């Protein structure tokens, strides 16, 4: 999967912490929310494996932009929020 800048994405509404020990770099407040790809930052070993000393395949890392109002409805229109998210947390919106 290669997501071009501008692609609309949705962050998976997944909560692995309810299923057992895990290490996740996807903040709670963006899960299930829609954003768009700003740019691809590179590929890095998956921290979810690294944290448990498992073999960690590299995953594409994207800078994903969200409208603040899509996360917190009473925010100022026009403000936004940029988060680094790994490809396996993103699906086309």
């Amino acid at each position, binding site marked *: 999967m290669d997501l071009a800048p501008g692609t609309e994405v949705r962050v998976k509404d997944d909560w692995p912490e309810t299923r057992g020990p895990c290490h996740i770099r996807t903040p709670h407040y963006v899960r299930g929310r829609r954003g768009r790809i700003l740019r691809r930052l*590179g590929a890095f070993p998956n921290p979810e494996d690294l944290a448990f000393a498992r073999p960690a395949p590299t995953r594409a*890392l994207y800078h994903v932009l969200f409208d603040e109002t899509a996360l*917190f409805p009473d925010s100022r229109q*026009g*403000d936004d929020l940029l988060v680094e*998210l790994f490809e396996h947390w993103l699906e086309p919106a």
Partner: protein
Amino acid sequence: MSTLVETDAETLLAALRGLLAAKGLATPAEIAERLAITEKASPAQGARIVAKAWTDPAFRARLLADGTATVEGLGIPMRGAPPLGVLENTPDLHHLVVCTLCSCYPRAVLGYPPFWYKSAGYRARAVRDPRGLIAEWGTKLPDTTRIRVVDSTADYRWMVLPLRPAGTDGWSEDALAALVHEGDMVGVSVPSAG
């Protein structure tokens, strides 16, 4: 375990250094080199980078395109450090950096994160109410300036390139660098010549 926990930190450190050397993992010289690099990293390094970017357009363009390689060119050691990204403030867009998950911070260029950056209050409020937060720092932005919160969640480390203050035409790099403080490169504050 209780004896370990109660052992004096200096004794523990000496034991750890001894083990690292005995196992061939790190020599005393390598440890001394890392200590020197860590101690040299401070907001003054970041301020020097900002002042150069304000006075040298070609450097500024390279810095925004590839922070790591460009600051290495200034003699700042980046080997082993996470990649550095630089976020350019403009009259229309102001960046505010936070790490909601822990305390990721561009240590290679700014040194240790300040205490407030690691606090639960800062981490929660930067994403939830960035305007209220920076107002409490006394930071005033034009009403037309948008805020972009940058949550540092993964492998990059982010530093803000603030706007050059008005009234600084013709200033030397050293004089400009003296205007730039830690918070300006996180985005809670903005430099001023006044």
